[in-house]
């Protein structure tokens, strides 16, 4: 068999495999709450969407944001506050959280894209920390306690979200919608331009693209989707606290993406599942989570930079990461 046909065969095989995996994944997600504790699966879904939103920026645009917790946790606060203090229905609260995160993304992105590479990471980290201090001091976040006892309410005024299974399928719908949006963005002409910026920014500039605008647009979309995940989490758990806006949370989403595979569609989902599962296991064992996450970080960077899904692509399907 010639090299070209071999390559085609493999590409076709990987597409077939991907479709099969997606179908399998959806079936698994529909049956999951009947087997596993639904709240735990919902937590995984929220973090998976968060990691995919983050990966849209790191994996497809090449920008490492160290401040994505600000969007995730910020949206959770906005949503929780609107639902609790103003009595908004859950869907309106989630929309507000998403819009708030997008607006924050616009401001933070506008400042951060003025520098590149390593500085971009430090600026996003610093701005997110500023938002953290703001949340510590502002009165609407209720300080160390956080916003507690947020009612799940009734969706569109008719569907009662207090039933665990109803809540689960609402979260699943949001998750699939978010993932579909990311998939569409990545595979659109816009997504191709983002990839060209990742590969060679100067070349993209010389081709006449206003790189700054594309980066900012990607940043806002990523922030909005991270916000969607955070706001949904606030409805699921019925609270919003400082934990979700800390720099540790920004680090956690990086770890999920790195472990699963930067720049792959499925990688961040796998990474999020593993990290959330690991934390759940460690929580009862007494072994400190930070040491475990730190060690995984170091191992990933040293010998496992493609991540789990990235390695599978390269080893078994001969596809570059």
């Amino acid at each position: 068999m010639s090299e070209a046909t071999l390559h085609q065969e493999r590409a076709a095989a990987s597409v077939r495999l991907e479709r099969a995996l997606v179908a399998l994944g959806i079936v698994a997600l529909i049956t999951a709450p009947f087997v596993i504790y639904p709240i735990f699966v919902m937590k995984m879904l929220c973090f998976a969407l968060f990691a995919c939103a983050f990966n849209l920026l790191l994996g497809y645009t090449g920008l490492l944001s160290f401040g994505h917790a600000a969007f995730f946790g910020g949206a959770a606060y906005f949503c929780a506050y609107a639902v609790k203090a103003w009595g908004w229905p859950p869907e309106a609260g989630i929309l507000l959280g998403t819009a708030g995160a997008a607006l924050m993304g616009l401001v933070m992105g506008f400042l951060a894209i003025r520098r590149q590479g390593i500085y971009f990471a430090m600026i996003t980290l610093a701005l997110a920390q500023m938002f953290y201090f703001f949340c510590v001091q502002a009165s609407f976040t209720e300080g160390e306690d956080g916003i507690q006892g947020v009612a799940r309410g009734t969706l569109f005024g008719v569907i009662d979200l207090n039933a665990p299974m109803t809540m689960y399928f609402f979260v699943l719908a949001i998750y699939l919608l978010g993932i579909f949006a990311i998939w569409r963005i990545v595979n659109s002409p816009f997504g191709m331009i983002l990839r060209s910026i990742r590969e060679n920014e100067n070349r993209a500039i010389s081709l006449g693209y206003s790189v700054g605008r594309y980066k900012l647009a990607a940043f806002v979309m990523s922030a909005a989707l991270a916000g969607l995940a955070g706001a949904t989490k606030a409805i699921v758990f019925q609270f919003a606290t400082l934990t979700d806006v800390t720099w540790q949370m920004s680090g956690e989403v990086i770890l999920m993406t790195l472990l699963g595979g930067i720049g792959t569609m499925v990688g961040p989902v796998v990474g999020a599942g593993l990290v959330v599962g690991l934390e759940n296991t460690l929580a009862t064992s007494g072994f400190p989570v930070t040491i475990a996450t730190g060690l995984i970080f170091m191992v990933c960077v040293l010998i496992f930079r493609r991540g789990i899904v990235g390695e599978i692509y390269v080893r078994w399907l001969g596809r570059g990461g």
Partner: protein
Amino acid sequence: MLTVFGIPIQALLGQLLVGLINGSFYAMLSLGLAVIFGLLRIINFAHGALYMLGAFIGYLLLVHLGIGYWPALVLVPLIVGLFGMAVERVALSHLYRLDPLYGLLFTFGLALVIEGVFRYYYGVSGNPYAVPTLLAGGTNLGFMFLPNYRGWVVVASLIVCIGTWLLIEKTRLGSYLRAATENPELVQAFGVNVPLLLTLTYGLGAALAGLAGILAAPVYQVSPLMGSDLIIVVFAVVVVGGMGSILGAIVTGYMLGLAEGLTKVFYPEASNLVVFVIMAIVLLLRPAGLFGRDA
């Protein structure tokens, strides 16, 4: 009572001193970051953890071996420096060919591990470290009361900063270092052992962080969290100053410390935020940073 804009001058000078102390630590830490970044092209996220490690080693030397402050001032930077050199040899040296972001991520993981270990064994509460007897008490300067140890911190940090600057700008070793920053291949071709130079540089940066830690031990409580809160502020300092110049990093550190102190007097609620606000303004007006050359 003498006042400035309705603020008693005592309070103003007191907060300026606190600002100067914080600024001393910003300056020492951003100096170390700049030295490491200059040659290794790695942003050392573990810098805060190394600073915490310095304070903790000083504390443990005192509690378990009875080794006091003055010997610790020499021992701690040595130990932290050696630890840094080991990290560079074992791990960081494999990352130089990659995107610098991997260096940031690796050192982030390292910081989590160091911090996690100390949190596991010593909890999150702070441990007091007594001021050495030689520097106990204070001096009345006429217009304000200066605790001797705080005066010493400012002087010591100035000595450290100027000493490091002289080492890099005026010595032969420093000239190798600067040359290797410009063109490592050429310097290697001239027979300078560049890999060794890289190891020494990371060791020097780590030692500076450790020294800052032991200097900080009697001022702040020795706690596992003391580094991580500080490092993010120091990142903002580095963005403001730009890492192009050593002197820029030092000056920016002191300036932002003072700015923070001033804010505490006039608008205390914003004192945590002011460094970040200044960073945002600098990014708008002068994206390359006040002393920066590269974007």
